[in-house]
Structure formats: C-alpha cells, structure tokens
C-alpha cells in the first residue's frame, strides 16, 4: 500500500475503493461544515472530515502524521473549538440575512472558479507515476525514524523556532483572555455578613394556630392578630393557596348574633301582633 515499487502508476484496488468511499465522506463533511446553520454541527462535520484525512495520511504512508492528525486535530483542536462554541456560539445564532447584496452568490462563484483553476492546474501537470515512500522509509528504518532524522538535522532551526512559536501562542492566549479585577475582593467577614443579611435565620414558624385549623395552608397569627405569611410554605405562597381563617370565628360569632337578633326581633314582632 505504501508503494513499494520504485515507480508505479497505479495503487492497489483496495486503496482505490477506500479513496472513493472515504473521499465522498470527506467532501460531504466539508460541505456540511460550510452549510450547517449551527456552529456545533459544523464543528462535528469538520471533525469527521479530519478523521477521514487521517486515514488518508495512513494510506499514503505517513503513519506518524496520521496518528498526530487524530491526536492533535480531532483530539485537541476540534475539542477546543467545541469548547469555545459552547462558551460563545450556541446563543449567538448566525444571522442569515445578507448585509452585502449578492455577496453569497459572488462568493460561491469565486469559489467554483478558483476550484476549477486549481483542478485544471493539477490535471495539466504531468503526474502520471509516483515513487512511493518505500525507499525513503527504509533508509532510516521506518517512517518515524526518517522523520526524526530530518527534523533534528535539516529542519532543526525550524523545529526550535516552532517551540518559540508555541510558547508565544500560550502566553498570547493567556494575555488575551486575562481580565483585570475591577473591584476589591470581598473579605471573609463581608461574605459571611452578606450571607445572613435579610434572611430568616431560626427555623420558620409552624402553620396554623387554631385547634380546628392546623392545616398547612393556614397561616399562623402574629400577636396583633394579623396572619404571618412566613408560616406557610413557599410553594403554597407562590400558588396563592393560603386560606386566611383569622377572621372566621369572629365572623361566625357575628353571624350567630345576627341570627339570634333576627329571631328575637321576629319574636318581638309576634308579641306585638299578639298584643
């Protein structure tokens, strides 16, 4: 599969089959990265495309790069993307209205033209045979050994500068996302005072004060006779299901007096009639 022949022009049938199947998947993934409305879906499509590309690297004999692609790209970079999407992009929906008129069609036209140019350029190049990596890999005993011998000899300065770049990027990310504290940090005393201010510290009083009505939806009475809402549980308070019975017995007494008065009054009338 890695092209052990010196100068072949055809790969194996298995690799061709793999290319056509996975290449379709890669193109579909790339298209849905561009066309999906939500950033999360775009990120997942891109992760799929990157995994397919990792398989292609392996098929092309770049074993080290294939593994690094999965570990670094789909493992680290895409998860960083998803993290930022969760932090930022989920609520920020992409506005679908065009701010520049016809910009999308122009952009699509430019893309198609560019693609045609690229593909025509590749088609015109005379790339009919390929050497394969067999000899290059075998020279130092394997793909990873070959890469290592190149990195630490020919490309050692680029490698060192890459290290400087990574350190700079790390510091840059820390500086960019750092936020200065604009107000003084609260002391422990202030926090503890804040925690108990404006709250009922002892247990809440029990509901109901009458022997006949000690149900949970009946508030207890304060010393001056007004009902206290604290004695009824929060849920019933929010639903407005508090029954106020503080005036019930007084009302009953009043009704009793009225009825007896009416009765007495009628009796008086009867007496008057009898007279």
């Amino acid at each position, binding site marked *: 599969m890695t092209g052990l022949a010196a100068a072949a022009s055809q790969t194996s049938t298995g690799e061709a089959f793999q290319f056509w199947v996975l290449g379709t998947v890669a193109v579909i993934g790339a*298209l849905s990265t561009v066309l999906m409305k939500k950033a999360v879906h775009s*990120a997942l499509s891109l992760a799929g495309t990157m995994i397919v*590309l990792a398989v292609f690297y392996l098929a092309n*004999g770049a074993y080290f790069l294939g593994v690094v692609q999965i570990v670094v*790209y789909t493992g680290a*970079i895409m998860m960083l993307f998803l993290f*930022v999407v969760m932090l*930022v992009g989920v609520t*920020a929906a992409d506005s679908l209205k065009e701010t520049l008129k016809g910009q999308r069609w122009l952009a699509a036209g430019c893309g198609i033209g560019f693609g045609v140019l690229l593909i025509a350029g*590749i088609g015109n190049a005379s790339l009919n045979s390929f050497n394969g990596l067999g000899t290059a890999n075998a020279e130092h005993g394997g793909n990873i050994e070959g890469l290592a011998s190149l990195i630490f000899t020919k490309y050692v300065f680029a490698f060192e500068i890459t290290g400087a770049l990574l350190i700079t990027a790390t510091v840059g990310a820390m500086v960019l996302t750092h936020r200065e504290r604009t107000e003084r940090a609260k002391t422990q005393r202030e926090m503890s005072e804040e925690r108990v201010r404006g709250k009922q510290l002892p247990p809440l009083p029990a509901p109901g004060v009458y022997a006949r009505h000690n149900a949970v939806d009946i508030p207890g009475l304060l010393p001056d006779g007004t009902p206290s809402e604290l004695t009824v549980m929060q849920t019933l308070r929010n639903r407005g299901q508090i029954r106020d019975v503080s005036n019930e017995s007084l009302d009953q007494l009043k009704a009793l007096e009225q009825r007896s008065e009416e009765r007495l009054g009628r009796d008086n009338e009867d007496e008057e009639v009898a007279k």
Partner: protein
Amino acid sequence: MNPVNYLYLAALLFTIGAAGVLIRRNAIVVFMCVELMLNACNLAFVTFSRMHGNLDGQIIAFFTMVVAAAEVVVGLAIIVSVFRSRHSASVDDASLMKL
C-alpha cells in the same frame, strides 16, 4: 487509481474551505473553514511526499500542524475576548475601526 486523485480531493477541500470563509459570518465557523483549508494543504503535502519518494513533504505537513495549533489557540482567544466585549461572534459586528 493514481495518487493524483488525492491532490484533486485536496483541491476540492481547499476550495470548499475558501468558499466557506467568504460565505459564513460566524467567526468560529470562518475559523473552522480556515482549518479545513490547512488540512487540505497537508493532504497535498503528504501526497507529494509519496509521489516524490522523500519525507520532506511530511515534515512540512508536521510544521503546518504545529502552526495551526498555535493559530487556533490565539484565534479562539481573540474570538472569546471579542465576544466578551461585544456579545456577538459575528464578523459583521466587529466594525469598530469603521468610520
């Protein structure tokens, strides 16, 4: 099949990524499209490495990956800080330098 097909695929993916950069407004999606273009370049490098039978193409692809990782870290940090100050990740809203 000739390995040139990998180059065609890389060109196609690069084109899709470039069109996405032009079309999309969400800064994160634009950034993902840039990543797609970088990946397409990597695929082309690896394929050229196989065609010419030396490992230099793979080395370049490896350095591209490192640079892409650094770029993603800084770029996402910029997006997060822009989102903090403007409450939007749309590239249309970041027009502070416009007159």
